[in-house]
């Protein structure tokens, strides 16, 4: 499960730290282990799915899987439209929740395919999704116009 890509992102996370400006900030917790992540999003341009993810900044406390997954989310989602980011998120979520039966699309998921092995360990799926689902929540709140 611990592919070198995951360990690299864990040791040297990309885009870590909370930055301004941002439209929404969310705090998500994994209640089974206490892992925490704070995610901010900064959206520009169009409305809804056409808006651009200008930045995803974060602060995370947790295991290598949750930390590395959030780092990869930063790489894959920033610079894309919300619509594209949600498509990537869906592909990622389908893969890690797929109990090893989903063939990941490397063109869409890039470094995130390294997390395919997590699917074999149901207890760790939450770790792999923590930062990604926080991002989804933050976008929803940003577009609803508020910070929680």
């Amino acid at each position, binding site marked *: 499960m611990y592919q070198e890509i995951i360990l690299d992102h864990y040791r040297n996370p990309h885009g870590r730290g909370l930055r301004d400006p941002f439209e929404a900030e969310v705090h998500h917790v994994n209640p089974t282990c206490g*892992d925490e992540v704070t995610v901010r999003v900064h959206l520009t341009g169009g409305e809804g799915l056409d808006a651009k993810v200008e930045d995803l900044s974060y602060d995370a406390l947790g*295991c*290598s899987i949750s930390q590395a997954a959030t780092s990869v989310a930063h790489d894959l989602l920033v610079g894309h439209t919300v619509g594209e980011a949600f498509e990537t998120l869906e592909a990622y979520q389908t893969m890690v929740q797929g109990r090893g039966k989903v063939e990941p699309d490397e063109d869409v998921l890039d470094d995130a395919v390294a997390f395919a092995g997590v699917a074999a360990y149901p207890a760790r799926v939450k770790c792999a999704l923590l930062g990604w689902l926080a991002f989804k929540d933050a976008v929803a709140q940003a577009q609803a116009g508020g910070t929680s």
Partner: protein
Amino acid sequence: MTAIAPTDAGATLDVAKIREDFPILSRTVRDGKPLVYLDSGATSQRPRQVLDAERAFLETSNAAVHRGAHALAEEATDAYESARERIAAFVGADIHEVVFTKNATEGINLVAYGMSNASVGDGVDPAAERFRLGPGDEVVTTEMEHHANLVPWQELCRRTGATLRWFSVTPDGRLDLDSDEARSVINERTKVVAFTHQSNVLGTVPPVEELVRRARAVGAYTVLDACQSVPHAPVDLHALGVDFAAFSGHKMLGPSGIGVLYGRAELLEALPPFLTGGSMIEMVRMEGATYAPPPARFEAGVPMTSQAIGLGAAVDYLSAIGMDAVKAHENELTDAALLKLQDLPGVAIVGPRTTEARGGAVAFTIEGLHPHDASQVLDDSGIAVRVGHHCAWPLHRAFGVQASIRASFHVYNTMEEVDALVAGVRRAQEFFGVVPQ
């Protein structure tokens, strides 16, 4: 129905022989690795004697207990009450002081909701007035509690307007009972003092006598979470002098779905019911009902029967080994685990570092390594430990750690398994490159 004869393990513990009673312990996991089960603090494994007792009951005598007059109903009721009698004797209680619940969590909630029901409205039975709580009253618990002995009291306080107070934990994993602040935690406003008999994380065994003494001095009721003590050591509830105590079957080699609430006879007589319905009534009219004496008053509905019989068999099994022998064996394993883990650079024990006033839960952290990651490496070697906050989030916060790794033992664990754990921790450190220089 008679008790199934347990293994005669004798006074000196023959662990190899005991292990033969537990089919699951001989299986392999993760590509053929022998299972090293160090998570009995979460749930213990069950010997054949318990599984056989449940099956034998279901194949010969199964019926709804305490209702019906046919042969099976009679046999089932006898088996159920016989289990209650043996379980009561096992913890030094009288038979009518043992209430069957789903688990310890339900037992503690039963007490909290009984008190809650004594605190609302008029027309409560005058005998229940002694349990009435309101603004100005205080409920005391401790920072080392499992959520099951904390959240029900938070909720009771919220519903009644009482105030929650607690004893803090010292850096070495003991209850702070003697600082100036601690001295006033139990006072004349205190109505309930709820505390653990053995921390499920730290292993700490708090001084029960002293807490009971302070509670009695102000007329407060004591509620003991005995989940981690009854399965691992001799416990005599009458001798301890607590008012209520709760424990779970599945942590003491018995089935899940069965637990026990103990209450001093005089108190169960006065406590209002928690769950209401069939079986727990004395007389019902459309306008209202009166209730059966305990323990029936607290066992509404058709109860879990084969589980109670299974727990009776578990108690027979443990009694045949002898709880002194169980305790001594686990103490040896704990002592070795504490010494060997502390010997590893970068490993820190969360809790007391010696076996003094301490049971067999050993929690620790590894510098630079998240517990989830460590447990993954251990799991790949077939070693099952618990990681996370173990339902004791405030305790972890008090220690400034987000999560920990916990190894916990039962009578079937071996010294070789302690060594496997230690070797596994070292392997995890090497894999993640966090061995301190």
